[in-house]
C-alpha cells in the first residue's frame, strides 16, 4: 500500500553521531526509510540501536551533543536539512508531532492540562482563548478521556499513567499533524493500559489518516498496529518488510532470533531462547558485520566485510540472506 501513494516522509542516508575526542563518533550509520499518510512503520531494536536518535532527529530535537552528520530528511514538501530553526519549529507540531516514553515527565507539572493544550493549539492556529479551549476539550474527547471539560483544569500529577499518555497524545495532535512519532509510548505503562494506548493509536491513524512512526523494542507489540517493520541493529536498518513477512519469513538472523526471544503465552515450559553476547557498546563496532559476534551462523565473509544495506523489502543486511 505504501508503494502507490507518494511518501510523506522520506529519510535517506541519515547519519547521527556524538562528538568525541577524535572527531565525531557515529552511532547511526546511514538509515533509509519512507512513510506514507495512513501508514504505520515500526522501528524496532534494542537499546543502543539508534532508533530513538533517528526519531528525535526528525523533529530536530537530538539530545545534548548529538548531531546529524549527514543524510536527507524530506517531510511533505519540505527538505528539513535546508530549513532555518524557525521554519523547523513550524513543522514541529505542525506537520509532525511526537510522544515519549514517560508520560509523567513529558508533561509540564506546573501548568494545567488545559493550559498546555491551548498554548499548543494557539502556537499553530490563530484562535481565541475560548475557541482554543473548546478545541482542547474536543482533543481530550478524541483521545478518550472521560469528562474532558473538567479535566482541562487538572494537573498532570492528578491523573493516572494511561490518562497522562492520552493527554500527551492530545497535545501532539493539537496542531493537526500529519505524522506522529511515538517513541516507546507504552514501555512505562502497565500491560492493560498498553493495550488501550495501542488501540487508541490505531484508531487515530484510521480516523485522522495519520502516518505513524512507532519506535519499540517489542516485535509482538508493533505487530498489532503496524504495516511495515524496520529492524535496527547497531545503528543500521538490517531488514525492512511488511509485518506479515517479517513474522513469516524473517531474513536477517537477528530478526529471527529477536522473534524467538520474546516469550509467548502459548509456549511450553522450559528455558527461554536467547541471543548470546550483548549488543555492541556505543561507538565500538566489531569489524565486518556488526551482528557477527552474536550470530550463530557467522563465517569468514562476515568477519571481512559488512554486508550491504537492504535496498528493498525482503532483503536483509546479511551475507546469508537470500
Amino acid at each position, binding site marked *: 500500500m505504501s508503494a502507490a501513494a507518494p511518501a510523506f516522509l522520506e529519510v535517506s542516508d541519515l547519519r547521527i553521531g556524538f562528538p568525541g575526542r577524535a572527531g565525531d563518533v557515529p552511532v547511526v550509520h546511514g538509515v533509509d526509510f519512507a512513510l506514507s499518510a495512513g501508514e504505520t512503520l515500526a522501528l524496532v531494536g534494542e537499546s543502543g540501536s539508534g532508533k530513538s536518535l533517528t526519531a528525535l532527529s526528525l*523533529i530536530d*530535537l537530538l539530545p*545534548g551533543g548529538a548531531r546529524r552528520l549527514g543524510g536527507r530528511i524530506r517531510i511533505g514538501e519540505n527538505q528539513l536539512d535546508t530549513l532555518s530553526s524557525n521554519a523547523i*519549529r*513550524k*513543522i*514541529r*507540531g*505542525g506537520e509532525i*508531532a*511526537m510522544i*515519549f516514553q*514517560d508520560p509523567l*515527565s*513529558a*508533561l*509540564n*507539572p*506546573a*501548568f494545567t492540562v488545559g493550559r498546555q493544550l491551548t*498554548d*499548543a493549539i494557539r*502556537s*499553530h492556529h490563530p484562535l481565541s482563548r475560548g475557541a482554543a479551549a473548546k478545541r482542547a476539550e474536543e482533543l481530550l474527547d478524541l483521545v478518550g478521556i472521560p469528562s474532558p471539560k473538567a479535566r482541562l483544569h487538572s*494537573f498532570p*500529577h*492528578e491523573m493516572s499513567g494511561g490518562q497522562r499518555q492520552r493527554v*500527551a497524545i492530545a*497535545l*501532539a495532535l*493539537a*496542531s493537526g499533524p500529519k505524522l506522529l512519532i511515538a517513541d516507546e509510548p507504552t514501555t512505562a505503562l502497565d500491560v492493560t493500559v498498553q493495550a488501550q494506548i495501542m488501540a487508541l493509536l490505531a484508531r487515530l491513524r484510521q480516523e485522522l489518516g495519520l502516518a505513524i512512526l512507532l519506535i519499540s523494542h517489542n516485535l509482538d507489540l508493533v505487530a498489532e498496529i503496524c504495516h511495515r517493520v524496520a529492524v535496527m541493529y547497531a545503528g543500521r536498518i538490517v531488514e525492512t518488510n511488511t509485518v506479515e513477512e517479517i513474522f513469516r519469513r524473517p531474513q536477517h538472523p537477528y530478526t529471527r532470533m529477536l522473534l524467538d526471544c520474546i516469550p509467548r503465552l502459548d509456549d511450553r515450559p522450559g528455558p527461554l531462547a536467547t541471543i548470546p553476547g550483548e549488543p555492541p557498546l556505543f561507538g565500538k563496532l566489531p569489524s565486518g558485520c556488526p551482528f557477527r559476534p552474536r550470530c550463530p551462523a557467522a563465517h569468514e565473509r562476515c568477519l571481512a566485510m559488512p554486508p550491504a544495506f537492504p535496498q528493498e523489502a525482503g532483503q536483509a543486511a546479511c551475507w546469508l540472506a537470500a
Partner: protein
Amino acid sequence: MLGFFLHRLGFSILAVLMISLILFVLTAAIPESPARIVLGADAPEVQVQQFEHEHGLDRPLLVRYGEWVDRLALHGDFGTSVVTGLGMNEQIAETLPVTLELVIVAFVFAVVLSIALGTASAVFENSWIDHASRIFTVIGVSVPGFWTALILILFFAIRIPIFPPGGITPVSEGLGPHIMSLVLPAFCLGIFYTAVLSRMTRSSLIEVLGQDYIRTARATGLPRSLVLRYALKNAMVPVVTVTSMSFGYMFGWALIIETVFNIAGMSGSLLNAISQRDYATVRAVVFVFTLIFLLANLAADLLNAWLNPRLRTVQA
C-alpha cells in the same frame, strides 16, 4: 491549598515560639542583672533587690517570658527598656522604616537583575554573556559588601562626589537627593544577593531546560518565548526559597551597611543597645528581624505552592 497554608502557618508559629524562648533566655538569663547595669556595679545589694522587685525581674524566667509573649501577641507591645527608660515600640517605629526601605530597594534590585542575568546565562549557556555573568557572580559572592561600600565611598563620594558619603537624605528634601543617597548603600547590600540568586537561577533553569516536558514543549512547536515561560515557572521553585531567605538575611547585612554609611536604621538601635547592655532592646530588635525572616519564608512557601501544584497536595 488551605490545608497546606495552615500547615505552614502552624509550623511558623511553633518556630516563633521556640526561637523567642531561646531569645528570651539568652537576653534575660545569661547577662548580668539590668539592675547592676542601671545602678552601677558597686550598688548595694538591697538597692539591686529593690530595683529588681520594682521591675518584676525577680520572678521566675518562664513567668516573665509568658508575660512578654502575652503583651507582644495581644498588644503588639515590646514594653519599655529598663535601662534607657525608652519605649521600644517608638524606637522600632522610628528606625525600622529606614532599614525596611533600604532592604526593599536592594532586594528588588537584586531580584530583577539576578533573574534577568541568570536566565540569559542559562539560555545562552557557554556564550560570552554566560561567561561574563559567571565571573561577575563569583566576584559578587566573594567580595564583602561593606568593603565595596568603603571603596565606593572613597571613589564616588569623596574623590568624585557624585553621591553623598553617608546618611539617607529625607524625602522632604526632594525625591532626587533621597534616591541618590540610597544608590550606594542599596547597591552594596544588593550585589551579593544578585550574585547568589543569579547563580541559583542559572543552574535551576539549565536543569529544567533539560527536562522531558521542555522537550515536549519544543516538540509541540511552542515559540521560544513560551518554552522559556514553561521552563521558568518550574525553575523558580528552588529560587523562590533562596530568595525569601535572602530577604531575611539582607536585614543582617543591612546592619553592617548602615554602619558604613552612618544610616540611622535598626543597626543603630541594636549596636547602641549592645554597648549600653540594654538587652531588652536587643531582644526586641532581634525578634523583629526573626519575625520578618519567618514571614518571608512563609510567603515563599505560598508562592512555591502556586508554582508547583504538587506541593499543594503533598503535605509535610
